[in-house]
């Protein structure tokens, strides 16, 4: 176990209640149950007030990090979200996306450092929308909120992050999105070198974090590195490097707090398996990749298919079995109304050595 306590030096104020929720652009496609789970956990299990405002928009972070959206534009977009929050009577901004969190932090820091940019943004926002805004009293990522309530969730837990058969803690690889604390180390719990936001949840819920050499390495999304097909080899090489580095520790699952990271660590396992035939988990399978909401949902006893875990590229069943989660295999591909939603073709990443591999191109 690591002699780590430096995270204590990086603490931040997290509001206890009344959150204005900013959604992610891409999460609902890849992990559609996660954001709903967050809302359900906060409202249902923790009894908190959270506004899921349909008026708010993308923060345009992807465009910004791909050098398409200029700084002034993104500042105005951010200002509009803050204005919406104020209009709704909230002042604690929480966002579901790490890149958004990074963007908001960066914009607030820029305004603090260069007040004239804030003034210009106010003008721009007013000219464009007729709105005015106040800066939030607190800004947090939704994983910060989950971290904040980790002990309460642990108290309400239906099961813990342990192997149901042996009682051993599950070995968890936690992956923090780069924009969480690498840009502003003080904006994240535990700072940029040893972020504690996910590790804190894992430890509170009975699991054990794996400290592997490439722990801090980027998942490989890198915006332009993925979005331009010619650069995709670099993107996948990053995930490849991380997976190679973590595999010897035999982690039971990966948990990430960033929309892109969870997606790339999951989907690139599929691509690597198809390209090279390499898989990194047990019995020739991939390593399941969870969002922290899914992890919290499992701990609180949510049904995995309710959490949207059937949408993962790497099958989660081996993990569910290990944790002793009761689930209906037949219900996996049934949608909310019980309608069959279709089934993906078999893939190398989900086949053990004894399975027959079908060529998906057939």
């Amino acid at each position: 176990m690591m002699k780590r306590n430096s995270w204590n030096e990086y603490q931040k104020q997290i509001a206890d209640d009344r959150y204005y929720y900013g959604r992610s652009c891409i999460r609902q496609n890849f992990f559609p149950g996660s954001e709903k789970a967050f809302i359900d956990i906060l409202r249902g299990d923790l009894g908190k007030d959270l506004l899921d405002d349909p008026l708010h928009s993308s923060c345009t972070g992807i465009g910004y990090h791909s050098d398409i959206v200029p700084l002034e534009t993104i500042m105005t977009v951010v200002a509009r979200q803050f204005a919406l929050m104020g209009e709704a009577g909230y002042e604690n901004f929480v966002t579901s996306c790490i890149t958004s969190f990074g963007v908001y932090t960066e914009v607030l820091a820029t305004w603090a450092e260069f007040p004239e940019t804030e003034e210009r943004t106010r003008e721009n926002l007013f000219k464009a929308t007729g709105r005015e805004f106040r800066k939030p009293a607190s800004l947090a990522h939704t994983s910060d909120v989950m971290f904040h309530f980790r002990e309460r969730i642990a108290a309400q837990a239906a099961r813990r992050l342990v192997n149901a058969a042996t009682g051993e803690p599950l070995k968890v690889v936690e992956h923090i999105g780069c924009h969480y604390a690498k840009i502003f180390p003080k904006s994240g719990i535990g700072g940029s070198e040893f972020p504690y936001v996910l590790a804190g949840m894992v430890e509170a819920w009975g699991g054990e974090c794996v400290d592997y050499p490439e722990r801090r390495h980027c998942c490989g999304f890198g915006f332009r590195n993925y979005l331009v097909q010619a650069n995709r080899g670099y993107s996948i090489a990053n995930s490849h490097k991380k997976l190679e580095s973590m595999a010897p520790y035999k982690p039971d699952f990966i948990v990430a707090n960033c929309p892109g990271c969870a997606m790339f660590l999951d989907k690139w396992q599929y691509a690597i398996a198809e390209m090279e035939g390499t898989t990194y988990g047990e019995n020739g399978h991939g390593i399941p990749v969870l969002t922290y909401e899914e992890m919290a949902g499992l701990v609180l006893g949510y049904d995995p298919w309710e959490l949207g875990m059937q949408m993962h590229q790497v099958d989660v069943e081996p993990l569910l079995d290990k944790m002793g989660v009761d689930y209906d295999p037949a219900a996996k591909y049934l949608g909310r109304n019980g309608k069959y939603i279709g089934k993906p073709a078999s893939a190398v990443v989900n086949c053990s050595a004894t399975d027959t591999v079908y060529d998906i191109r057939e």
Partner: protein
Amino acid sequence: MKRVIVIGGGVAGMQTALRLADDGCDPLILEKEGELGGKLRDWYVLFPTFTPASEVLAELKGRVIRRGIEVRTSAEVAAFTPHSVTLAGGETLACDAVVVATGFTLFDARIKEEYGYGIYDNVVTSADLERMFAEGRVAKSDGSRPRRIAFLHCVGSRDEKVCQSHCSRVCCITGVKQAMEMKRLFPEADVFNFYMDIRMFGPGYEEMYREAQQRCNIHFVRGRISEASPTIDGRIQIKAEDTLTGRPLKMSVDMLVLLVGMRANDSNARFAAQSGVERSPSGFLAPKSLFLDGVRSTAEGIFYAGTVTAPKSVGECVCEGYAAADAAAEYVKER
């Protein structure tokens, strides 16, 4: 006889007091620790000659005792003016002049947390290593012999990210010296030194550097380590850029030694506020002039010796002791 109080009983302070006695003054050394010696007490051998630090220290302390110089240990100074020094206990001592020889503070390597000091086993500082040499017990935390050792230069030096923009000067040669000592202890081990620049400013240093390279086969890689992480077999993986090839470089090592720099004492700020002396941007106290008045402060009656003004080697500190004492003696006689 004129009383001159020397604050700090390290090499600079001791030599100042000795010279003050020669100059016909009545020196008093105030040392905050329980005994004289300062930082040198924790050092094993000195570059570039591998002379035991204890030898140098014993000689200097012997002279102080033989000369009958008044010393007060465990005496921490709270404040001073040119003519009085107040101890932490509240006692005030009158004097005719003050020589500040309070030295420096070692940079706390935990601040550079990416190197994992205090987090991973087998990440040690140069000061830790000196202690290990002195105790004769250099090994990995599990007692085994290291097969690969990396030294990282400039930890807490020339690093704006930790507000230490200055060069600590002596760490380069310390890194070379310790690498050679490690190679001597573990001839089968590979030793790598990661540096930004190698600054061999003193006599015999460059020659020692060359010997380390050519005779001891110590690898010098120009590039600063970016991070250290644990490996599954309990080693430490380090990453750097090998800037001379323009390629990133990674390797796992059994021991990572951080060559910690010299930081200005926190007390310097207090002294500056109370006594009207000036501080340089690095936090070290600023002499009146870098050229003609290197041991005089900007305030009358306050003098400097040693690393209180900037990082220096042992020999340089001792030389400053002579100069500061003469300047102080001249001042008290004219007064």
